[in-house]
């Protein structure tokens, strides 16, 4: 059958192209443009090639040192909060009621932290942790524990981590709960008949049935924690010293503090690339798992 040649569809797609170009491609290209140049103000730019990128990846330079140090802190932060939030979220989901009015109550309570804007969360914890007027800080200090997130690196880290756990464990718990709810009763009944222990039910039924939502939860939490800015900025401002300066905080310092547009542009491109790669890896794992499943189902 011959297809009629008709190019009118392009007209319909064109507005989308235009919008995407204005909102995404043009700004991105501007950043690419900046990353290749240097400026000394006055709107005068000088060609710098891949100079910024070289510097960025070289730990002996100032830019590279700062970038790699903040990247390391950021990765460490993501790993720590993932290894707390994922198991904790699973435990919370497992101990939630399955039916009755308690379900709604639990869901509402769990959802509360998720509804609070980031900077409010930061402010809450900033005040909460203050040794002079904050409930947490004051209590700890009056108990004889010397806690001060402004001057002590460890205290600052603990505050930021506990704050993130408080803010985001609910998300993991809600996703896991949804996964758990989708398991038909027959599985639990069969496990009961098979004499499975509580732990065996968890490893043989609940965990395998949750693995898809867990993957999504890990992806979301990794992305979010890797891009974290507002909360630690509000609480610690990246300090004491540079100890809680994550990549995004460093980026803002360079771009808006020092107005080094070239360096900042190069940094944000590399930052973006890292996130894209991680995202792609997760996406591949997820679609592979999905494809494997659909192949199985086709055979079935």
């Amino acid at each position: 059958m011959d297809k009629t040649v008709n190019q009118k569809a392009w007209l319909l797609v064109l507005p989308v192209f235009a919008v995407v170009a204005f909102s995404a491609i043009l700004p991105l290209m501007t950043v690419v443009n900046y990353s290749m140049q240097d400026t000394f103000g006055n709107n005068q730019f000088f060609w710098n090639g891949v100079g910024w990128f070289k510097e960025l990846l070289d730990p002996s330079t100032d830019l590279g040192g700062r970038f790699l140090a903040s990247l390391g802190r950021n990765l460490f932060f993501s790993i720590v909060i993932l290894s707390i939030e994922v198991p904790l979220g699973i435990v919370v989901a497992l101990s939630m009621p399955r039916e009755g009015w308690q379900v709604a109550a639990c869901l509402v309570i769990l959802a509360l932290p998720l509804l609070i804007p980031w900077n409010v969360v930061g402010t809450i914890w900033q005040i909460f942790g203050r040794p002079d007027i904050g409930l947490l800080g004051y209590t700890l200090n009056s108990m004889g524990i010397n806690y001060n997130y402004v001057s002590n690196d460890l205290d600052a880290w603990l505050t930021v981590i506990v704050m993130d756990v408080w803010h985001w464990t609910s998300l993991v718990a809600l996703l896991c709960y949804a996964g758990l709810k989708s398991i038909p009763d027959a599985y639990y009944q069969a496990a009961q008949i098979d004499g499975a222990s509580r732990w065996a039910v968890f490893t043989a039924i609940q965990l395998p049935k949750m693995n898809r939502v867990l993957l999504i939860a890990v992806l979301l939490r990794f992305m979010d924690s890797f891009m974290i800015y507002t909360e630690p900025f509000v609480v610690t401002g990246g300090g004491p010293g540079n100890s809680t300066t994550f990549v995004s905080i460093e980026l803002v310092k360079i771009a808006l503090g020092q107005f080094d547009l070239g360096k900042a542009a190069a940094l944000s491109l590399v930052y973006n690339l890292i996130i894209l790669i991680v995202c792609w890896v997760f996406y591949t794992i997820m679609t592979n798992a999905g494809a494997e499943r659909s192949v199985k189902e086709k055979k079935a």
Partner: protein
Amino acid sequence: MARIDLVDLAHSYNGNAAALESFALKPVTMTWRQGGAYALLGPSGCGKTTLLNLISGIVTPSRGKILFDGGDITPLSTQKRNIAQVFQFPVIYDTMTVGENLAFPLKNRGVPSREIDARVADIARLLDLTPYLRRKATRLTADAKQKISLGRGLVRSDVAAVLFDEPLTVIDPELKWQLRSKLKALHRELDLTMIYVTHDQTEALTFADTVVVMHDGRVVQSGTPAELFEKPAHTFVGYFIGSPGMNIVPGEVGGREARIDGHTIALKRSYDDLPAGAKIEIGVRPEFVDVARPRPGLLSASIERIDDLGRIRFARVRVGDVKLSARVPPGFSIPDNTAGLVFDAAHVHVYADSLLVEGRT
């Protein structure tokens, strides 16, 4: 392996306080012998799954007792009851191989691994699963998964009864036959008490030697397939079993005669003391009513259509306002749309308020 006694067993999902009439399962007392193949047959919502879950211990009865070999097991948990259950949808442990799935119940009970291997090998051979033992269970077809679910019940040497909750729902039709005959063969080989819940009369009648028909939370009849066919104890059984179902016609009965639509037909038995004020109905299976050329002395009916089922033809006829099904004898041709009905008196039953009345011979 066990004999199962149900003693005044009843259940309501609203707790004990509810009126007996609203119970999902009204009180039932019956005995299922060791090694029997039973089917619980009835439409959706008749209480058959409730009864099954009571026996497996998933649901605790509101009243009554369940005895296995005379011992009261009502308070025991599912784990301690030694029963196996196969559910409507196959339950497979995704991360395990077929072999690990089969070994799971034994492992949970701390059986030595050498014994586990031997049992698993035995059961896999019995269910034709040996070639798949090392495969991931999730990659198998629905019927193989159902076999694994069944196998997980059978590996335990002490299993008292195997319960099936509509196990063939998700199986392709052509595989249903295979799996059903496999179940039959297993039943013969293993001498296990099997209880099979279904709403499909063909499944029930081919699988079981005793079919328990349930309706509206009650056991209305329990008997062999032949008994259910020839002597339904309740109009519901007559209507639910058989295709087409039994003809149930309102009429008047006195002595050895029944009157339908002003016409008298002879009965084989005598009904003198029918309860006064009861709704009297006459029930006769289409297989025992023949259409014939209309002649005086036959109940005349108008033929609405003829269904040819291949082996047998049934006429859908109308007598007054009542619709009936009747057999069309081979070679019979219908001159016009009227016919006479010939009743086989031995198979005409009388029902008072839906319950069979035994006549005196």
